[in-house]
């Protein structure tokens, strides 16, 4: 839809949604949210872009092909389960690393977060793939 109002708003909301999505992803373990909603929010941002500026513009904004996002997401989620396996624990057992970073305070790096990142990527990839494909019909 060609509209100045829409496309200008999209320029504001797109990055905002992406930022929110990362926030939701990272906070998901402690507050409502998580990889799935995060991925959906990110996808919503890009969907908005696709609606206001057309799919090619949205594709340019994503840079990566959605298929690769799917593969990478699945690989990330899967590989989050493997360290435990090598350590003799059951598949998908969580392994944690606490890092104190400036600004963000204490960050819990963990296989669980990696798992959620995988979820995020897959959801983003699949929704984008769907929206782009349907839009381009």
């Amino acid at each position, binding site marked *: *839809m060609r*509209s100045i*109002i*829409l496309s200008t*708003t999209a320029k*504001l*909301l797109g990055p*905002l949604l992406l930022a929110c999505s990362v926030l939701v992803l990272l906070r998901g373990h402690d507050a409502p949210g998580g990889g799935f909603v995060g991925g959906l929010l990110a996808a919503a941002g890009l969907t908005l872009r696709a609606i206001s500026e057309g799919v090619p513009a949205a594709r340019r904004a994503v840079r990566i092909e959605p298929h690769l996002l799917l593969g990478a997401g699945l690989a990330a989620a899967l590989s989050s389960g493997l360290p435990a396996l090598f350590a003799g624990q059951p598949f998908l057992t969580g392994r944690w690393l606490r890092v104190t970073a400036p600004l963000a305070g204490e960050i819990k790096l963990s296989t669980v977060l990696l798992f959620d990142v995988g979820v995020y990527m897959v959801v983003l990839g699949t929704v984008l793939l769907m929206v782009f494909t349907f839009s381009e019909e």
Partner: protein
Amino acid sequence: MIEILVSFLLFSGGVFTLLAGVGLVRMPDLYMRMQTTTKATTLGVGCLALAVAVGVGGAGAWVRAVAIIVFLYVTAPVAAHAIARAAYFVGTGRWKGTVIDQMQGRYDEKTHELRGAGPGGA
């Protein structure tokens, strides 16, 4: 005191939202319905969000309340704009009491361009 302020905000929000509902049912054409809903809900939800911020207090509540208000204030007009525009294309009727319509006939049916200058223009 805070309880009273919160209650006041709450009731304001509730009343405005309810009015939006009434307006939506009562108003005679699409555009007038949109007028009532957009306006009333923005203030309605705004009051309610503020009520939470004041009532619950703390950074968490305030950040969330402000976020809701800002997001809603940005997105609601865009949605209204999109719908209004679309309604023009599908020819949704205007109320017979509409006195002036300076947008009539300015949309190009093919390109969807909206002419700024021309007959009836400013």
